[in-house]
């Protein structure tokens, strides 16, 4: 696939093909059932039920405070860090309830990578950033680390820009490069799922386009869930879109349909910019 063929019509063609080939057969990477989420006494997610398809890009959209980021952070249990945060309901990742007792959170997070809104490279060299996840998982072999670093940076479309300066500080990179480095770092540990929390909202438009292209190229190998405030971005990169409002999942469907012919009035109002 070259980029030209992919960028615009690619989405529609693929979606159409999939629609013909029995959508029921699609494998679900994440299954969310009756998820209610609380910060202390305050409920922020209400009865969320969602299936997220394997090797698909799923976009979560909605106005600020609608709970989409919270939901994203439930998927790798990042909300565990917040005191008083509590989830009731089920979140199955690849058939395993990640909130079941006895589940190893560290293992969950290793299998589910995350990219944050603000790029957060560690104050280490580019190389040390990329291999961080592998190192903490106990990988010591230098050749294997080198190989993983190159492969991840290649996949994150950053290799050519940094191959000469792998041992320079990651903080010397530009904002867009830093974010791609964070993506490389996340995929270096070979996660099954990649969560992205507004990955390009802090970047200039050109850098943002690079991130989008990257997301597009990654979906062959990863299930991607992306939170975005940029509706065009959601329309461009995602296969399915979920619209949240006040902690509820209002509508969830194939992206083209969501953006051209939403079933709910609320979705239509949001997408056409009448509120939010």
């Amino acid at each position: 696939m070259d980029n030209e063929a992919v960028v615009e019509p690619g989405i529609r063609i693929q979606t159409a093909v999939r629609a013909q080939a029995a959508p029921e057969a699609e494998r679900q990477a994440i299954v969310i059932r009756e998820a209610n989420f609380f910060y202390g006494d305050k409920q922020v997610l209400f009865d969320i039920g969602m299936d997220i398809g394997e090797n698909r890009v799923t976009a979560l959209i909605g106005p600020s405070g609608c709970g989409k980021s919270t939901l994203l952070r439930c998927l790798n249990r990042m909300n565990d860090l917040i005191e008083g945060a509590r989830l009731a309901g089920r979140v199955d990742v690849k058939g395993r309830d990640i909130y079941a007792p006895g589940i190893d959170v560290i293992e969950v997070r290793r299998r589910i990578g995350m990219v944050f809104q603000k790029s957060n490279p560690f104050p280490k060299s580019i190389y040390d950033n990329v291999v961080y996840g592998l190192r903490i998982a106990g990988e010591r072999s230098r050749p294997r680390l080198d190989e993983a670093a190159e492969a991840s940076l290649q996949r994150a479309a950053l290799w050519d820009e940094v191959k000469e300066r792998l041992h320079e500080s990651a903080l010397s990179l530009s904002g867009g490069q830093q974010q791609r480095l964070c993506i490389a770092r996340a995929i270096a540990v070979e996660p099954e799922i990649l969560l992205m929390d507004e990955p390009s909202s802090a970047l200039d438009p050109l850098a943002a386009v690079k991130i989008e292209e990257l997301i597009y190229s990654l979906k062959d190998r990863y299930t991607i869930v992306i939170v975005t405030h940029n509706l065009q971005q959601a329309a461009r990169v995602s296969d399915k879109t979920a619209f949240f409002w006040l902690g509820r999942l209002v509508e969830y469907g194939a992206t083209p349909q969501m953006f051209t012919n939403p079933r709910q009035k609320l979705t239509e109002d949001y997408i056409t910019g009448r509120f939010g």
Partner: protein
Amino acid sequence: MPPETFARRYRVRKMTSAVMTAFCAASVVLALIPLALILFFVLRQGLPALNWAFFTEMPRPVGEAGGGMGNAIVGTAILIGLAALVAVPIGITCGVYVTEFRTSRLAPAVRFSADMLNGVPSIVIGIFAYAVAVLPFKRFSALAGGVALGVMMMPIIVRTTEELLALVPSTLREGALALGATRGRAVVTVILPAALPGIVTGVLVALARVAGETAPLLFTAFNNRFFSNRLDQPIASLTVQIFTYAISPYEDWHRQAWAGATVLIAAVLLFSILARVVTRRLERMHRA
């Protein structure tokens, strides 16, 4: 508002601003006067008394001119080295605990204790060290002095570490955890290194601070007229030596005391400069 009123009020506002600025400038000058005077007097009296022998020779008996404080300089170095050995590991660990386990009920207690300890008069800390490190062994020792100074350093390091760790963006912590790091791993591999430049500065500042302490050493390290590098024996220190010489009736000792004060101030200054250089170098490494 009519333009004349506006103009008049504007004049008043401008004047108020000028007066306040002048007041602030005057305060700065006032605050700097003691520092300038201290430096002036110490250097005026101390520099002429300084010579090479001061650094290399031992104190001479009363009445014999010359000699130096070589033993006290080495002694002070040993004492603050011991203090760092006591305070740095414990202080940094406590600082990490207080920041990383903020929700623990023990954290506020640790923080409060550190503040209390920081406020304890140094002579009391000396008595404490006397009770735990001198009495049981029935001997003044360098080790006891190191413990006393270490206890003084500890709260400074706890608080510095805590403040600097809190400055590390939480996104770094989340980034490490999202990659499957355990909490401890995230602290050791990401958060502490990110805060390191500041922590190093804090340690050096704390060292400079305790290097100038006298009271905790009076009945712990005591003093020693001879050269000693044994940790289980009394040891000389610049501060105690200055004290002893300054209250003596001998002109020659007074001169030596001034020289000692000069060396001490120079050492503290050196530490501060070192702190800055190290911090800048580490920061450059981190921020590219």
